[in-house]
């Protein structure tokens, strides 16, 4: 069996859902003949036609708005943001229209908005963002952030089948760097809202998601070898809804927790997670729950600057040591 990359896993997931359900269609910029800048939709327009793989004008509001309208009527649109940074242009449409439609008006709006997110690729301030914090406080949306090829496939398929709007933030750093065997013919579906223990441990928990999972695993390995520490890595996979139970179970087990994310610290998703830990596992904490996150600046372009601003494996190691010895 051959290994499937994270990128190919997303592609396969979309492809399978397109084959399975003719209500599924794709809408976005340059997703047809080009297959998108990263080729996530490669070959799809040739296979499914220009009506189901729609190249749009540069109009993120129209992409999401039109998807919503089609979704109300029973279709299942998958929107691509060419870079996820441009989801900011559809912020009103997503938060005010899409997210509220079911509650306000009983409108079903099953749609997916996906796109390449994340840094570590020298993309500069507008091609590196992690927009999850911008949408976390929007009831009505779901947010998923896969770290592995398996989950990339399983979550994109689950997102497409979900009855509600799902933001699928795929990490471009992982596209071709992460791969695994995905088992021929097996139907992979990752339930939205369920975390995954990426590495078991007893001394300390790192709660994280997306590309940071891999850095956390590296850190855990180093801490095992160098410090004899048993670090559990919890890959949240979904941020909305958040798998509170898994977080609490891990924290109650280890009593020390680090929440790590790539986005800037202030107002980032870690705040929410730490508040929940505080609410649900306060008595079990032997040290303050702490955060590792990017520095509070727009993401700069130069390698030296980007490397400093974004959290690195070394930072996780340092933070874990601090926590372990608290």
């Amino acid at each position, binding site marked *: 069996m051959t290994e499937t990359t994270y990128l190919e896993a997303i592609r396969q997931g979309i492809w399978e859902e397109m084959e399975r359900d003719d209500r599924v269609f794709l809408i976005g910029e340059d997703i047809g003949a080009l297959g998108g800048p990263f080729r996530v939709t490669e070959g799809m327009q040739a296979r499914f036609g220009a009506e189901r793989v729609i190249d749009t004008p540069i109009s993120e509001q129209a*992409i999401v708005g039109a998807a919503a309208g089609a979704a109300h009527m029973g*279709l299942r649109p998958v929107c691509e943001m060419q870079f996820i940074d441009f989801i900011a242009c559809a912020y009103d449409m997503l938060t005010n229209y899409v997210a509220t439609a079911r509650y306000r008006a009983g409108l079903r709006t099953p749609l997916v908005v996906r796109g390449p997110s994340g840094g570590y690729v020298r993309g500069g301030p507008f091609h590196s963002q992690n927009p999850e914090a911008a949408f976390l406080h929007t009831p009505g949306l779901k947010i998923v952030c896969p770290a592995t090829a398996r989950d990339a496939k399983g979550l994109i398929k689950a997102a497409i089948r979900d009855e509600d709007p799902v933001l699928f933030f795929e990490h471009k750093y992982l596209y071709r760097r992460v791969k695994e065997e995905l088992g021929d013919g097996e139907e992979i579906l990752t339930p939205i809202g369920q975390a995954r223990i990426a590495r078991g441990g007893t001394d300390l928990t790192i709660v994280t998601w997306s590309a940071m999972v891999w850095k956390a695993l590296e850190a855990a390995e180093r801490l095992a070898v160098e410090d004899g520490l048993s670090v559990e890595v919890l890959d949240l996979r979904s941020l909305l809804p958040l798998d509170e139970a898994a977080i609490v179970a891990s924290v109650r087990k280890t009593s020390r927790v680090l929440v790590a994310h790539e986005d800037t610290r202030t107002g980032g998703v870690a705040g929410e997670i730490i508040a929940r830990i505080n609410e649900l596992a306060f008595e079990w904490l032997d040290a303050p729950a702490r955060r590792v996150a990017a520095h509070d600046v727009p993401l700069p372009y130069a390698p030296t600057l980007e490397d400093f601003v974004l959290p690195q494996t070394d930072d996780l190691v340092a933070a874990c040591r601090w926590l372990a010895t608290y």
Partner: protein
Amino acid sequence: MTSPQRVTPPPAGLTGVQLLDLYYWMRLTRSLEERLVSLHRQGKVVGGLFRSLGQEGDSVGSAYALDPGDILSPLIRNLGSMLVKGATPLEVLRQYMAKAASPTAGRELNIHFNDLERGFLGQVSPLGAMVPVMAGIALYFKMTRQPRVGLVYVGDGAMSTGAFHEGINFAAVQRLPLVVVCENNGYAYSTPARLQTAAERLVDKAPGYGIAGVRADGNDVVATYEVTREAVRRAREGGGVTLVELMTYRRKGHAEHDDQRYVPPGEIEAWEGNDPIDRHLARLRTEGWATEPDIAGVDARVRRELDAALAQCLDEPFPDASTALAGVYADPPAAPVEWYRRAAG
């Protein structure tokens, strides 16, 4: 019902019954709003009240051009369009009064409610947003090869939004079966059209999107019907998007609390002489499409219907607080009750 003394051929191919029907919808719209005004004064309307006085013609005429199966999305002032498409006065009254039995169970205001079966999709407040959304509905019609049409209203103000631009452009490129009706009523809140656009006519935007454009007298319900009908036909036959500009005037303030201090003296009065209901009645009478008893019959029917609706809902309760958390998602079905509302966390 068509009377013997008819002297001209039926305008826009409408029968006498239909012409009287148009009168019914306009009258229903205006009378329903008048009822809402008294309810508002009595403090029974929970939020604001938005009038379409003087604009009933463009709402009714344009919506009347749609077939069953077509879907429209109104603006705040398209009460008439909603009624034509099957929304009932009872629903509207309940919405304004935030009743438990209202279509949105008290969650949304005024005419922000939907029934895709009957063919209307309520708007949201951010202006322009419904243009892309209705483009999506038209996209669905096109993709599923259904000969159905979408119609979306925008104001002279809403046309300045980015959402309008992106939505109409996308629909134009895709040649979607969509009619975009611009209700040019001279104002967006206090802002006169000349501060909204430097274009001479809003319909001049059509060539820039590569779509058909047409302008008509929005206070002539039949003319409105006629141009919209043509645009609907074009859309249904695969001819793509039309921008229809309907010239009308907002005789009341933006909402009930607005004293219209910004309106030049005499302007409103001038438009009172151009009332769409008066004009249509005059046509019915002079061209002989309806008798006085026909007209009186409509008026009585409207009164009766509104009396009944009001009687039914006036004392209905607000929704129960316990309903507040359901239905944000299909799954989980309800948001959790916050800990401070329960015994303890």
